[in-house]
């Protein structure tokens, strides 16, 4: 079994990938220049072959790594560091992406899949210079990642001889099934944005910024955004279920790295509607796409190089400088193209009034851009201060919470009005008319909040505006379904409203749980119930579970005399690390979150249990589900599907029977 083939085979696959991506890039560029010069598209035939080869190489490398991990091939350093005989098969499979080198393989696999799908999708249009340029960009990005994996971040490096077992992945990555879903889904989001980035570069290079390339890639961008959103939320869920501090978001650098491209991506999916409708903001949208991709690379650099732990850490491995160089190239190319071409390609035209849907989308863009700036500044500020003044400061939750609260409230406020705004111009009479019932929803939400005892300006504002915005979104969906039946649920605007509903649920739940979480340390004695916030907690006993890799002590706590919940402390024998596992009782109004605090003395018959009462947490996950559903609905073609060849600013024929319905 341990014939050690996986290492050399995997390395060979990576080398094939490097070659395929390099040749593919060259072929694409040559083909682009050929077809742009009007010559016959000779080289274009090669593009699909190299794409297929690159995909096959990425797939083979991943298979080799999984094979090595599954067969416990300890000749590889990576398996020595993260594999173990006692890790269950499920977690062992996921152990491949539990650390840097393996996670780059996952990224490469996602890139390979994207390459293959894009090539297949445009197989008949490869002689279009713009498509060729886009393929070139994708090949170059894939080349960089193959080089990273072949070079500094080599997962197939040989380990020390004679090692027969390893510690396994980090214990935090071994006790929840989310580890199987969160990284792949998140990476699909990151990598998904490579495609619109490639087309944006191609549009700038060829100067064809006004055409249907936008519409071609819109579904791709929507899915990438959707995967990124769900990936981020799954990360929050993992933090909640596994880490034991009962929160979902801690503003740590890794989380911020995932949030940054999401913010610019969200700005993009809104402002691109202005481009589709009015033909405006072309260069701005291109800039947003370039920024989004650059931020995914910056985020990878920040989290993979160890820079944010200490600005001096990244010089210790080759990965940091490599990623930083790649980031520099991406930014230089992007800025260069914008500087060179941007002004010549700007669309003419004007936006008539700030009180219009276009105006709302522009305000949305400003808010999201400022939010992205705040997150970026807060994340890199300690780096800069340490580099310049050689002292360490922390910029963490208090800063981000203080900054994000007013921004979030402003975004909620915008969500109240924007859905009812028509294109071009709105009269105040129209606003008064359309916003009436949504406003009453907001008032109702405020009343309900006050009745259940909420206090504090920020959360109350969030609840009021959440109700208002929810009313506005629901109004649009109801009107659309009234006019068009089930078709009123699909299409960008309607699907978007459902996504908005999801976002509102998440915002309200986040606000409630951040402001009104109550916690208490209970010292429970067996058989003696204690009460807190209207619930009784009784320690029934202890349970010990030992297996090959860990020994867990569970405290069985009965909540309100009912079923026992078992928070645990697990000692992973290989790593000598103690990991606390919370146990959560979920209801529609609040979660009861229990953790077992060390030191745990089973024979004393007492346990220190920390209880958190967290309001409305379940609604966060419901909101996430709504976001996913809404994204899928938005990807369906709406009633009026534009053909890619329609000019983007042609007026839409007006059908008087559909005066008030959704039109995109």
């Amino acid at each position, binding site marked *: 079994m341990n014939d050690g083939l996986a290492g050399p085979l995997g390395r060979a696959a990576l080398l094939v990938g490097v070659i395929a991506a390099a040749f593919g890039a060259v072929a694409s560029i040559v083909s682009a220049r050929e077809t742009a010069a009007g010559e016959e598209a000779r080289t274009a035939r090669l593009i699909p072959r190299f794409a297929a080869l690159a995909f096959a190489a990425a797939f083979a490398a991943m298979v080799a790594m999984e094979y090595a991990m599954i067969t416990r091939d300890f000749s590889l350093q990576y398996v020595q560091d993260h594999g173990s005989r006692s890790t269950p098969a499920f977690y062992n499979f996921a152990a491949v992406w539990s650390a840097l080198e393996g996670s780059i393989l996952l990224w490469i696999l996602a890139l390979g899949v994207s390459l293959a799908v894009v090539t297949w999708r445009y197989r008949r249009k490869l002689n279009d210079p713009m498509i060729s340029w886009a393929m070139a960009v994708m090949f170059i990005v894939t080349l960089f990642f193959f080089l990273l994996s072949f070079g500094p971040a080599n997962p197939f490096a040989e380990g020390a001889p004679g090692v027969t077992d390893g510690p396994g992945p980090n214990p935090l990555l071994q006790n929840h099934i989310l580890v199987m879903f969160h990284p792949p889904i998140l990476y699909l989001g990151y990598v998904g944005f490579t495609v619109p980035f490639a087309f944006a570069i191609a549009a700038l290079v060829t100067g064809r910024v006004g055409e249907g390339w936008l519409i071609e890639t819109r579904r791709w961008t929507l899915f990438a955004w959707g995967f990124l959103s769900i990936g981020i939320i799954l990360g929050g869920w993992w933090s909640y279920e596994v880490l*034991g*501090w009962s929160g979902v978001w801690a503003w*740590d*650098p890794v989380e911020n790295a995932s949030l940054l491209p999401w913010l610019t991506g969200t700005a993009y999916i809104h402002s691109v509607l202005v481009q589709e409708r009015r033909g405006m903001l072309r260069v701005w949208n291109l800039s947003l796409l370039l920024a989004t991709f650059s931020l995914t690379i910056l985020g990878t650099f920040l989290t993979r190089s160890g820079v*944010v732990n200490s600005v001096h850490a990244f010089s210790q491995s080759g990965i940091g400088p490599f990623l930083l160089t790649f980031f520099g190239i991406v930014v230089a190319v992007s800025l260069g193209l914008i500087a060179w071409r941007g002004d010549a390609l700007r669309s003419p035209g*004007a936006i*008539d009034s*700030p009180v219009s849907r276009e*105006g709302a989308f*522009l305000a949305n863009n*400003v808010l999201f*851009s*400022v939010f992205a*700036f*705040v997150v970026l*500044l807060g994340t890199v*500020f300690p780096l800069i*201060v340490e580099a310049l003044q050689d*002292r*360490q400061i*922390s*910029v*963490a*939750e*208090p*800063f981000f919470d*203080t*900054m994000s609260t007013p921004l979030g409230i402003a975004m909620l406020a915008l969500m109240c009005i924007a859905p009812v705004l*028509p*294109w*071009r111009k*709105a009269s105040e009479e129209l606003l*008064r*008319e359309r916003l*009436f019932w949504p406003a009453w929803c907001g*008032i109702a939400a*405020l*009343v309900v*909040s*006050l009745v259940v*005892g909420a*206090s*504090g*300006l920020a959360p*109350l504002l969030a609840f*009021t505006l959440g109700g208002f915005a929810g009313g506005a979104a629901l109004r649009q969906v109801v009107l659309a379904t009234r006019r068009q039946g089930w078709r009123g649920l699909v299409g960008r*605007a309607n699907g978007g409203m459902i996504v908005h509903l999801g976002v509102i649920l998440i915002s309200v739940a986040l606000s409630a749980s951040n402001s009104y979480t*109550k*916690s*208490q*340390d209970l010292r429970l004695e067996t058989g003696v119930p204690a009460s807190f916030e209207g619930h009784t907690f009784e320690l029934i006993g202890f349970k010990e579970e030992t297996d090959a890799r860990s020994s867990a002590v569970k405290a069985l706590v009965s909540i309100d005399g009912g079923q026992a919940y078992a928070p645990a402390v697990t000692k992973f024998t290989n790593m000598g690390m103690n990991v*606390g596992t919370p146990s959560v009782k979920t209801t529609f109004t609040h979660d009861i979150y229990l953790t077992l605090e*060390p030191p745990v003395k089973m024979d004393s018959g007492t346990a220190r249990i920390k209880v958190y009462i967290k309001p409305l947490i379940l609604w966060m996950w419901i909101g996430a589900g709504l976001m996913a559903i809404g994204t899928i609905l938005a990807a369906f073609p709406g009633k009026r599907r534009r053909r890619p060849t329609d000019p983007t600013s042609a*007026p839409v024929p*007006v059908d008087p029977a*559909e*005066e*008030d319905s*959704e*039109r995109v």
Partner: protein
Amino acid sequence: MSTKQSSLKSWPVWAAMGIIVVVMLVFGALRDSGPSTQAERVDAIAQRLACPTCDGESIYVSRAPAAEAIRNEIARQVAAGQSADNEIVAYIEQRFPGSLLLPRAEGVDSLVWILPVVVLVLGFGGLALAFRKWRDEAEAQATEADVALVAESLGTTESSEKNDRDDD
């Protein structure tokens, strides 16, 4: 639209709604949510301090042993009831320099507070300028010569363009 419907959504009604909301918000904002329990004090203090062995995680979030120890100390001091929150924060910060999670508003650190505000102002200011430019452009009057030129190139007499109707 019937007059009854239009009077329901008229300005006075909206103004009344606005006043109701403001009153309720003020009431809710100033409402006393009860004295904070010891656990809440401990949590609040813990959220202001960084765990010394982690990468910027707060003591509230971190499960590291050092964070546990500091949480215990905070709980001990809160239970003793002799120090105010700020004093306890200062006690920990003195012994673990750099653990204050909120950057101070002095010197270089203040930039982290000022720059976002600057960017926000620039953003909305730029937007306002853009709207003004667009409005100015739109207000440019077509001269007779312009109208004639357009008619000539269209090969028609002046045709009125249908404006986008009030639609979504």
